[in-house]
């Protein structure tokens, strides 16, 4: 598909634009209908920032979601992109279908903790195994908001519901699970750390396989009370970045935020570079075993480890494993999809 620029927005005084010449307004969406102060709205804002900074062409983005508060948010960013709000827990399959049908699209999936870790755990597991090119954001607040505050499968053991009920079941840690399953980009962030979140999102967009980002996103209505382990206060106090993240996309040359020196670098095939600087602990996001050990240990210490917990840009993506042409399968000319008359005749002859 050609890179024909979209219709220009009205621009009275040459607004600030990104590297493909679009203003940020072109990345915005409808007005949010979530509760005032919802962590999800902060994430939406950072998604807009990341898409703008990365300069994706809006019409080449496809947004996917399941069902729940989180899954409403694709309507709140990038109006100029197609959105598919599917069924509960099945975002990965609709994204898989659309992105194998048209691999030239950039897929952004938004899900929640119920949508992913409870009803959707099966599809989550398999999309990670396949390494589908998809940014998969889990807006994680430990409860079901739209049905008024029931626990989800990421609720911590001992966490208190608003009405006082205590969760007795072991939470599913989507990040360690994703790493176990061969995830190639696994990150955790916190809606209260906008800078880290935006950088992780930008790196996730540059990553060619599945990028899992579990974002702790407090529910201000049903899970922000004393005794909650997903409240804003608790999350802020327990947020433990494993490193400082820096990201230099392929179209930029320098990085201001992180000085060179004691940082570790991971290069992406497109030329983008991820940089990590230690923050008082020895953490290597390319060491799978150690990453898992560190995450497991953090559970006992009530730490919410954030940062890019594991990354391996070298693994083949689903598209590569499928052996597909890489071009869109949606409008191939007839001669590419209908074999010739002689091919049918040959098959008929073999059946006589």
């Amino acid at each position, binding site marked *: *598909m*050609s890179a*024909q620029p*979209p*219709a220009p927005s009205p621009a009275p005084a040459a607004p600030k634009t990104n590297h493909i010449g679009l203003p940020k307004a072109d990345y915005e969406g409808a007005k949010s209908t979530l509760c005032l102060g919802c962590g999800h709205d902060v994430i939406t804002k950072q998604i807009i920032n990341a898409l703008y900074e990365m300069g994706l*062409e*809006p*019409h*080449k983005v*496809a947004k*996917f979601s399941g069902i729940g508060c989180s899954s409403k948010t*694709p*309507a709140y960013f990038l*109006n*100029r*992109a*197609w*959105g*598919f*709000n*599917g*069924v509960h827990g*099945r975002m*990965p*399959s*609709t*994204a*898989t*279908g*659309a992105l*194998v*049908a*048209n691999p*030239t*699209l950039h897929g952004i999936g938004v899900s929640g903790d119920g949508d992913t870790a409870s009803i959707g755990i*099966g*599809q989550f597991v*398999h999309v990670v195994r396949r390494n589908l090119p998809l940014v998969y954001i889990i807006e994680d607040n430990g409860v079901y908001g739209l049905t008024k505050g029931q626990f989800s499968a990421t609720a911590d053991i001992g966490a208190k519901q608003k009405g006082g009920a205590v969760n007795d079941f072991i939470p599913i840690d989507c990040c360690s699970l994703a790493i176990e399953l061969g995830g190639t980009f696994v990150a955790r962030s916190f809606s209260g750390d906008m800078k880290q979140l935006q950088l992780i999102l930008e790196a996730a967009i540059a990553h060619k396989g599945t990028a899992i980002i579990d974002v702790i996103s407090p529910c201000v209505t049903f899970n922000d009370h004393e005794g909650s382990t997903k409240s804003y206060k608790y999350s802020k106090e327990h947020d433990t970045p494993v490193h400082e993240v820096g990201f230099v996309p392929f179209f930029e040359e320098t990085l201001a935020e992180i000085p060179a020196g004691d940082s570790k670098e991971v290069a992406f095939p497109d030329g983008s570079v991820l940089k990590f600087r230690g923050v008082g602990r020895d953490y290597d996001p390319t060491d799978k075993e150690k990453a898992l050990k560190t995450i497991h240990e953090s559970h006992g210490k009530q730490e919410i480890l954030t940062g890019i917990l594991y990354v391996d840009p070298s693994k083949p993506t689903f598209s590569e494993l*499928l*052996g*597909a*042409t890489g071009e*869109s*399968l*949606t*409008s*191939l000319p*007839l001669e*590419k*999809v*209908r*074999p010739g*008359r002689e*091919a*049918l*005749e040959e*098959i*008929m002859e073999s*059946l*006589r």
Partner: protein
Amino acid sequence: MSSVLTETTSRAGASSEVVANDFSLQVATANGSGSQTANSVLMRSIFRMGVPVSGKNLFPSNIQGLPTWFTIRANKDGYIARKRDLDVLVCMNPETADDDVREARAGAFVVYEKKLGLENPGRKRDDLTYYAVPFSELVVKITSAPEHAKLRKLIVNMVYVGVVADLMGIDLEETEKAIAKQLKGKPKAIDLNITAARLGLDYAKANFPSKIPFRVERMNATQGKIIIEGNAAAALGCVFGGATVCAWYPITPSSSLCESFIDFCDDLRIDPVTKKKNVTIIQAEDEIASIGIVLGAAWAGARSFTSTSGPGISLMSEFIGLGYYAEIPAVIFDIQRVGPSTGLPTRTMQGDILLCYFNSHGDTKHPVLFPASPEECFTMAQEAFDLAEQLQCPIFVLSDLDLGMNTWMSDAFPYPTSPLKRGKVLDADAIAKLKGGWGRYKDVDGDGIPYRTLPGTPNAYAAYFTRGSGHDEKAQYTEKPQDWVNNVNRIARKFDTARTMVPKPEIQDPFHAPAGILAYGTSHYGSTEARDKLAKDFGVQLDYCRLRALPINAEAADWMRRHDRIYVVEQNRDAQLVTILRDEFPELATRFVPVKQYNGLPLDATTVIEGVLGDRDQQKQKRTA
């Protein structure tokens, strides 16, 4: 109902009268014993002699050990439905031999493994003719080499092919050609199997001077025809119908459809330049993911499909409702098997008519196509993609185990000549002209079918948001009562448009009779044979309508109005099609007489004849009472 007739009256066996090209033969073996190759060869040998033939495999849900039966029906008049009564039995399975013989009709012929001792005192039936063959001893002769010892279990099957060839007059040359075709590219296996067939033929020649009077005689009724399973035919239809995304989950009896698609695509869908695939096939983690992938791909603009059976449709139901309401094309093959639950997964049924027609929650209705032959599996697969994209909705193709997994004689498939009908898709230029005037769910043409755009279309106005929740013409979220009503009423109008587009029925009204048979799918064969016999043997003249799709179109409705007694033949307990007909045509409700078979076996003509005659007796009694 008591049996009002027998299929075979004073036929061969009772006398020495020879019957040419009209018999039913059954081979009983153990599952996994490798009899499939031999049975295919036997069937193909008869086919190669120009005689219409069908083969039905009755197999257990098991990999090895449980009994399996293969039935071949040859018929000069082209009747290929299952027959209740068997003329010739080949008994190789010790587990079932006694039952097989006990159930045989009087006058049948039994070829059996001598070791089974079926003619021992106390076991022998006087009304059968037996041919005892020491198969297990014979086969040792040609598999004495140590490397062949393991093959004995397989090769012994080809020995009975040779015996049957001699006893029934099958030309061994055709058997040899059939072996060469079946085992193409394996010269050693071909040699060994031909040797085995000759061994059987020679043994029968030397030991059985009196042959079976059911004879295979050359005719010319299979010229140009092919032998194929419905699932392979449907897979070919998907290849030639331009499908580019397939997602599936293994389930009997559907798996071979997608597996055939994989095989065909490995040859036919490789890009000549890049050598890469211009198709994507995904074995998903379950049926829910399969349909999710299909809908995602179709939403993006690919022709996509899945294939499953009843349990898979149940799992897909939530997504299918989304497909209906969000108006996304999808093609769903349902190769029906016996349910509910696991049911009889290796037996056939037409049991998912209601499940599919009304699939999902809320107000839903879907077009359903009923292929009745491999050729229709091929053509209807292509039509299904055209309809799905033109109507922007899921389309069901309802095949069944009998059609999908059994081998059928068919006309060669016609090369498709029409272009792919991709439906109402707006490109960037069209959107540019419409500016803000485009609405994803707006009924511009009055047929209920809106226009859509595909993700990636380079125009700022092209994008829209797809959701299963309430939406208006512009695809904006709404909970307004009138918006909801307007939208679902438009989708109902679209369904009326579908009525005019789905395949028309096959109507045969030779008698312009007041009564008729209405059937669909594989019920066609037993029904048409019954219709001919009813006219010939019982003086009951019936017209015939084969429904090829739902919703019911005008042609089928007219036919029903023309006939005041309609025998609706189905392979399910609850007369599922009749339920739909009575609902949609309440004024005709009393005309429909369900004729049903639901024992897991393919429909036979006798069931239909009994159903029709039973009803006529009742009617007569009512009149005289």
